[in-house]
């Protein structure tokens, strides 16, 4: 009896000590994944994913709470990169349907309040107080933050048009017996 209790105690203490030591010496620093994921997101803090900013979104991704397709402005490229990083397979069809967009300021409605200019996290909107604003198309990444702050609903999002320079062949029609 005594022997059993004794040996179990010794074993318990030894193994417990080992675990404790392991926890101390083999401890992993703050999850580096989160930082890496954050670096992959656009960083414009647009909030379209439903999180406050890209940092929070990265944290959610790291915890596996958010889908890799969470970032609309990042597009398919970002979703694929995230999926690869996290080792998950993602259904990217959503990105297929909704292509990238850019913001357009309707001249007649703009009152030159500069709110959108302040809101834009990539400085894609030009203009000054009381003057018509306009969007630099190449810089705008379609986060639509400006749409929300415009008091006159003068900003609309439009899909980036297909031109001769970005057109490409669509997938062949699967009219045949594909396996």
């Amino acid at each position, binding site marked *: 009896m005594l022997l059993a209790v004794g040996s179990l105690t010794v074993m318990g203490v030894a193994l417990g000590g080992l675990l404790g030591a392991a926890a101390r010496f083999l401890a992993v620093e703050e999850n580096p994944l989160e930082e890496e994921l954050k*670096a992959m997101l*656009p*960083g*414009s*803090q647009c909030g379209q994913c439903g999180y406050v900013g890209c940092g929070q979104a990265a944290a959610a991704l790291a915890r596996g709470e958010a889908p890799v397709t969470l970032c609309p*402005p*990042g*597009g*398919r*490229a*970002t979703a*694929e*990169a995230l999926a*690869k990083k996290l080792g998950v397979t993602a259904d*990217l069809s959503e990105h297929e349907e909704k292509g*990238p967009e850019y913001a357009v300021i309707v001249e007649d409605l703009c009152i030159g309040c500069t709110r959108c200019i302040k809101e*834009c*996290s*990539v*400085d*894609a909107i030009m203009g000054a107080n009381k003057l018509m604003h306009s969007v630099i198309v190449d*810089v705008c*990444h379609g986060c639509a933050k400006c749409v929300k702050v415009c008091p006159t609903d003068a900003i609309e999002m439009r899909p980036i048009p*297909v*031109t*001769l320079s*970005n*057109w*490409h*062949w*669509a*997938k*062949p029609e*699967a*009219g*045949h*017996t*594909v*396996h």
Partner: protein
Amino acid sequence: MKLFPIRGGIHPDYRKELASEKAIVSLPMPALLYIPLQQHIGAPAEVLVSEGQTVKKGQMIARGTGAVSAPQHASTSGRIKAVTQIPAPHPSGLAQTTIVIEPDGKDEWAELPEPIADPFTADAHTINERVAISGIVGMGGAAFPSAIKLNLGTQKKLDTLLLNGAECEPYLTCDDRVMREHADEVIDGARIMAHALGVPRVVIAIEDNKPQAIEAMTLAAKPFAQIEVVGVPVQYPMGSERHLVQAITGRETPAKKLTADIGVVVHNVATARAVHHAVRHGRPLLSRVVTVSGAAVRETNNIEAPIGARVSDLIAYCGGFVVEPASLVNGGPMMGQPLPGLDVPVIKGMSGILALTAAEINAQPASACIRCGTCVTICPCGLVPVEMAAFIRKDNFEVAARLGVMDCVSCGSCSWVCPSHIPLVHYFNYAKGMINAQERERRKNDQTRVLAEAHTQRVEAAAEAKRAALAAKKAQATAATATEEKASA
């Protein structure tokens, strides 16, 4: 001359006899000319004229912009009817800015740049400059601005100018006719280009199925020891730049490099002729020879058409269609692009207009792959089409890229041989488009990240400055009160 073998390749039904014996004819000036701003690889040209303005033949009506671009010229004299959007000769059928000229019938020349009297004493820069302002682009189909390729001599160590007269595409005979009828002009152009490039040697490669062209060119090249005319085996895609270089020199261009990196610059024979006109006569590129062929067209022809003439003008000249064509192709049947309609204009890179019947195309519904491996055997690029297509079908572009889909030259050989009629090249074109689009997206995301960081920093710096200013003000105020207190005390 010793030739080197190239990998794979096919022997399609060439059907060159349909048009090869038709001498080049000039197209009567159409009622309207449509000159698109983008007929080349690179940035579109910038319009220099406005509606209602009169222009002379050869006058520059749009200028090149940026590093890779080419100007456009009025193909005849007349009035600018409009600058508008019309469908481009592009499979998308998307519209692009196009200058519409109403010819006045006088065909009056503008004041042209002085001919370069002795190009062989002129420096390379002068010749390049002339080629650039003459709007010359690669006339074999790729339409890359020629001046840029002629400038490679300053950056790379070159030894050979390879003039591509292979014309390995079935049906096409325009280069054949140009070489037969204008051999002297081609040879002169080649000598000028060789001088500009600073290379001692010119090789003119012509597929053996064009004996008359080889004969004419050999004769014209006889006085010049530096020029060698070589017959190359009939093997599609012999005319592919990298493969032709390999066949002639035995050198294999490394992936992601140019043939110029291994000492060879390749130009099309028609381009050489255009260079001759530009340098010797000051004439910009205003017309090109287009092969109109296919079983659906009444009369096949090799037509020297002004740039901007519509496809319908050429088809009408050839007597229209015998039967409704199943496909209308811009270029050859292997690598050509489908034309979106008859109203699109002839552009600088358009070597052929083919009106093909269903029997000629022999399109069949695709069936399952039986892994026969023929596509692997014939791929001139050493790729595994069957495997790449399988991954692309699943939209797995990453693996497709690793398997080399971006190395594919879209020569079409695999689609041609496939017994299951699987549209392999279409899969590869799709994958290339998607991979390029993703690359653009990735670059944009990178740019966004940089801009967002800069923005954040600026906002923070501004806030910091504001805080500092506020603090300073406060401190000042406190100090002031303190002094006041002291003073009052």
